[in-house]
């Protein structure tokens, strides 16, 4: 491989490594920001819901008598990606969920978050983001909780768009940088050739001297 090509390939490969690392790490950060916004949106939704449930509970309506069907439909419309809204009692037994098969079962431990005393928590299960909120009556007694299950697809569209677009942009920048650096690479290769000449000119005469 001629020196000019070798220098170009080396710079191209190094640039590709740098740019792919920037794209990967930025994608990770973007994913985190999108997830955080999803989590905050679900938090607002649960906060609104918890107000009405607590007021109804304080007025004497048992928790099990609450139905979230209407709220679920509204939530799906307003907060993209909400897959389900679950109401559970203080023992973690599910009272209402869109999947009827879940009702009466206990909430899996992995869904309850790591901090048992936090008012609101997040967890991840099977790629889905879970946002939970504990319900306390006006007397401070824990009466149960609400859990929003956010689909893994909620920000998949935006993320996939970035996944397609950013590497293409990186490729464009790579080509642009290489074009920009061609004169530099040419000069570098020329200097290298001169250096090779210098070193071989210095190395060979001593051998010639000795052989003569």
């Amino acid at each position: 491989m001629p020196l000019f090509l070798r220098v170009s390939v080396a710079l191209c490969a190094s640039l590709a490594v740098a740019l792919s690392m920037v794209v990967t790490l930025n994608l990770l950060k973007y994913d985190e920001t999108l997830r955080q916004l999803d989590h905050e949106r679900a938090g607002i939704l649960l906060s609104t819901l918890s107000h009405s449930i607590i007021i109804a509970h304080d007025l004497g309506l048992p928790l099990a008598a609450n139905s979230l069907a209407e709220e679920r439909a509204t939530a799906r419309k307003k907060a993209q990606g909400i897959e389900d809204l679950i109401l559970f009692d203080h023992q973690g037994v599910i009272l209402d969920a869109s999947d009827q098969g879940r009702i009466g079962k206990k909430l899996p431990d992995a869904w309850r978050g790591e901090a048992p005393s936090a008012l609101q928590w997040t967890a991840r299960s099977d790629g889905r983001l879970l946002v939970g909120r504990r319900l306390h009556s006006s007397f401070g007694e824990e009466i149960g909780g609400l859990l929003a299950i956010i689909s893994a697809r909620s920000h998949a569209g935006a993320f996939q768009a970035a996944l397609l677009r950013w590497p293409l942009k990186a490729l464009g920048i790579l080509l642009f940088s290489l074009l920009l650096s061609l004169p530099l690479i040419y000069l570098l290769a020329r200097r290298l050739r001169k250096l090779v000449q210098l070193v071989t000119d210095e190395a060979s005469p001593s051998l010639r001297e000795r052989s003569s």
Partner: protein
Amino acid sequence: MKVGCKVPPEAATSIDRLRWVVTLVALSLMLLATLLLTTITYRGLDEQLDHRIALKGRLLTDHLVTQFERAAQHGIPLSRLPDLERFLDLARKDHPEILYLGLAAEGGMLASSGTAPPTSLAVVQEASRQLISQGGRPGASHLGTEELQFILQGVSDGSAPVAVLILGADELFAWRKVEDSLFDTLTVLLVSLIVAFEFVVLLLMRPLAGPLLTLAKLRAAGEGRGPPVCLRYRARDEIGQAVARFNASAERLARKSGQKLRELTPATALDIRLPLFLFIFADELQKPFLPLYANSLAPAQSWISTEVLISLPIAVFMLVIALATLWAGHLVDRLGPRRVLLAGALPAAVGYLLAAMATDIWLLLLARAFTGLGYAGIVMAAQGYVAAVSSPEERNRAIAVFVGCLMAGSICGTAIGGILAHEAGYQIVFLLSFALTMATAVAAWCLVASLPAQARKPQSFNFRSFWPLFRNRAFLILLFSAAIPSKLALNGIISFTLPIYLNHYGASAAEIGRVILIYPILILFLGPWLSGLADRWNSARFFTLAGGLLSGTAIILLGVSEGIGAAALSVVLLGLAHAASTSPQISMAIELCPREVEALGQARVLSLLRTLERIGSVGGPLLMGSLIAWQGLGSSLAYAGVAIATVACGLLFIGHRRQVEAISPSL
């Protein structure tokens, strides 16, 4: 085979200059390209986030309007609601992108939280008045200005709108995220640049510099009267052609003189760079979270306190390194660096695999012991290779390559390890370390030349021969006042206590990694400059003392203050302290032990110092674990800081003694 002569100065200068030009061109290009890409990607982020922030803003206005409507429908006038501003402040608190929240009635604003430009506010208030006067319950309407994206939603008392809730979302949220995460962005750029630079070395500098330097050395070899030498290098470029011409001349000479032609493999210190970088990268990945991982594996009930138990993985790792280093040095002499490097990758990889699969802390300890064994072998082999392929004139530069590689691997590993642990979990990071160690072995197999084993008989490590050093009071003061405390601070505070401290204040593994990262960056960039300054001012003792005192102060600061910012400041001070004092410690050791250096040799005196300072590496985590169990996090840090600063004052006694010695002959 090594060429035992130096490179002619004119060729060395040209090769040096070329190295600098290549580095400069490559780094400038990479910096420009990565900055451009970061700017462009954040523009895209801005567009995407706007939509999501609007969605969230509508949800928040819905939530607040529902609550205001509940009051209005019960006949409570909104203007009489108590603490309305505080309510809006609280609603805005957890949403940094919501810059303004206000409740407007027909007569004017009832309450507001946050700030908005007066001109935009006047427009929004006018729009609110119109919404109220239109009657009926309007849905959310949007109004965009240069700085804020407003959402307006009417509050109805059941029959007619009585007020409008105004929410102002930050139009420049994505850019503010960039500003907030400036350190993150810089970390990403730095890591990308370092990794890409390693590629430049691998693809460009190593294949060019190796044969060129060897050719230049052969010139000097040709001038002697030894047997002719040819170079084992095949490539179709200009260097390959030059080597072929040279080899043809050498073959002719061999035929003519009847001498046997010697074959030479071009080997330089750059050969070791990629394997070493990959291995250090692999090993440093665990740094931001190892104590936290150990804590997750520690049993709830144990005869050892949890804090001591979670300090053991670092202590055991350091102990195995300390013991195995002595043995690995002999092994490198007997088997050659390449074999030891390849063999060292095996226990290291097994260690990472065991760590990923560890179900309890004892298995993690075993895993770290295996990795420590591999670490000692690989690092000693790399050091041995660097020493073997460089002539005495090149040795300082070759050691700089070695140290630079250690630091570069440390920076990248710590940064990426934190991010990965945060995103994918601790086990995945250990599995990545395993994969990288395998890549180390492959890189070593392909790049590192097989050098013959040293002919000399390996010297055994005999403590009795070092006895004069143990009787040198100044050497002992240096050891206990500076060398051991430095390692204690590095492994006891930065590697062990800092992750626990930062986790205590809610930092994620990625944030812990970014804070720890400050340390190697300062050592890499300020270390050579500060040690140069210490040499120029001939004040190694002052720099060592100042480093010790600053180190103590940094740890006290960490103990008495709270939060991630305080931790970052302490790491900056610790980095400065160690950058200033590590190299001067070596100068001091040589200066303080002239007779021992003459009798034992400089290398052996320094190797004893380096071996004994590992007492701090092993003891640091154990000591801090015990102190934390006994006194709690803050107090133990304060005590450790006071102790380090106090023992550093011991260096003052060396000055006094030497002064007396200097004066007494004249008396």
